[in-house]
């Protein structure tokens, strides 16, 4: 392996703030939308939807990269409870704006961005180190 390949590759993306703040953590990527009520366990901060690609996986403390929300209007309430239970993600990056994800991000109070100028599902993989500087609308990805 050459020295150049061993070095971590850093990618910077620019987008729009949804909720302000700054956080750095490991990425957890889902190409599928995620439910709130009926789709997550708010005590563990994990996905419980049958057949979901993240079924059984915890998003607590991760930078959750996903298309957005789906399902019941209990979305925000369940992600709100995640914050109160200490199981919320560290930050969120999503691609499809809806009232569920907007309100859920607001009450989760975690740094959140959308409208990034690159395909996050191409550029970010689970395990990459991701910094979300939501106030600046900047996401910095360090590939693992």
């Amino acid at each position: 392996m050459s020295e150049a390949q061993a070095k971590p590759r850093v990618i910077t993306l620019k987008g729009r703030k949804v909720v302000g703040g700054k956080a750095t953590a490991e990425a957890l990527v889902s190409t599928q939308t995620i439910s709130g009520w009926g789709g997550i366990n708010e005590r563990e901060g994990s996905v419980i939807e049958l057949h979901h690609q993240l079924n059984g996986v915890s998003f607590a403390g991760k930078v959750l990269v996903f298309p957005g929300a789906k399902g019941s209007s209990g979305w925000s309430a369940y992600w709100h409870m995640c914050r109160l239970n200490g199981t919320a993600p560290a930050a969120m990056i999503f691609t499809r704006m809806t009232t569920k994800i907007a309100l859920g991000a607001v009450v989760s109070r975690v740094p959140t961005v959308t409208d990034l100028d690159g395909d996050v599902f191409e550029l970010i993989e689970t395990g990459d180190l991701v910094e979300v500087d939501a106030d600046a609308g900047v996401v910095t990805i360090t590939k693992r």
Partner: protein
Amino acid sequence: MRLTDHERAMLDGGHGEAAARAMDLLVRYGEALGAERLVETRNVAGAFNASTPSVREIAEDSLDRVFSELNLDSDDVIEIPHVAVPTCQLITGIDNDNFATQGVDPELADLQLRSEQYLGKRGINLMCTCTPYQVGNVPVMGEHCAWMESSAVIYANSVLGARTNVEGKESTGAAALTGRIPYWGLHCPENRFAQHLIRVETEVGDMAEWGVLGYFTGFAVEEEIPAFEGLTDQPSLVKLKHFGAAAASSGGVELYHMPGITPEAASLDAAFGPNARPEPAVYGAAERRRTWERLQNASDRKLDFVMLGCPHNSIEQMALIAELLDGKRIHSDTELWVHTPRAIRQVADRSGYTAIIEAAGGVVMSDTCPSISRKVPAGTRVIATDSAKQAHYLPAIAKVQGWFGSVEQCVNSAIAGEWLGVVQ
């Protein structure tokens, strides 16, 4: 975000601390959405009741704290005044009469009663159903609403032509105290045109078939807006209630157009407006069968529990279930719970339907459902339901196997004690 003078005054505390906190949340939420302004609403349907174990700890402090934290996202406890505009409570976690059968801790049932007194004093109408449009909250065409409950939102937008996004617990709390909600999404007429065309090439007749078409639709369009062609059946409230609930479960559908059936678009041209008409997604016999199979999350046929009434049953559905159970007896190893709004239950009682269902061994429940309460009869391993929405959610929530079928299949299986349904 642009605020009117009145909205600015509310934000600045001129109309009390609760309105100020509510406006603060609406501004944070509106800015997250990218909304430019708020819109007035006089119709709010939300979830305010304290009836879950996770809320109990907060409620022990005070019910003002429950509202402040969970309905306004406020860290400080605010004294909550009377609501500013008509507001109703949607489905809750506990049936006030059948909580023991549900397996609910009596202390939690008592908390719900205290919470209801608190909410009623503040002008919140305790409809306690996922279907407020069945019991007196029927918005008119074009009315701006702030509703939660995905199955009610899709019904209000599509069948009634009202305008609401899928709101949440916090935004409906803020809307109740201010009469405002972000003007975004489906409040704006330009966002209400169809983006997908679904061509129906098979018979969609009874309620179960409408539920399966809805379940297909959610997967096909996710949260976008479909229009339909090729429907031959004239659906009733019951069928559209099931169709919408299913589409909002498998996807996030909040509005659809069925020219000739729903009021906003009389033709496909009107449904698509300025949008290009895409190639249709075909729903034929093969798609119906595949979707019906997708709703089966079970392998064991020995049946422990049959759940009917999601979304909450109409009086017509209560009459049908009574007819199917008349003179019959549900198997001793199987439980049957039938869910209907409390106001409709009164009509069912008076019409003798409740007595027939109970004589057969069933229970008529109100105020709640197993997915919301997370309560099923003790020891349940295998359930069956006539609701695509419940079949989608309950197996995950209650960690059980789940069968889906028509109401006739469900009732006959409850009598037999084993799943007799077949994929249609």
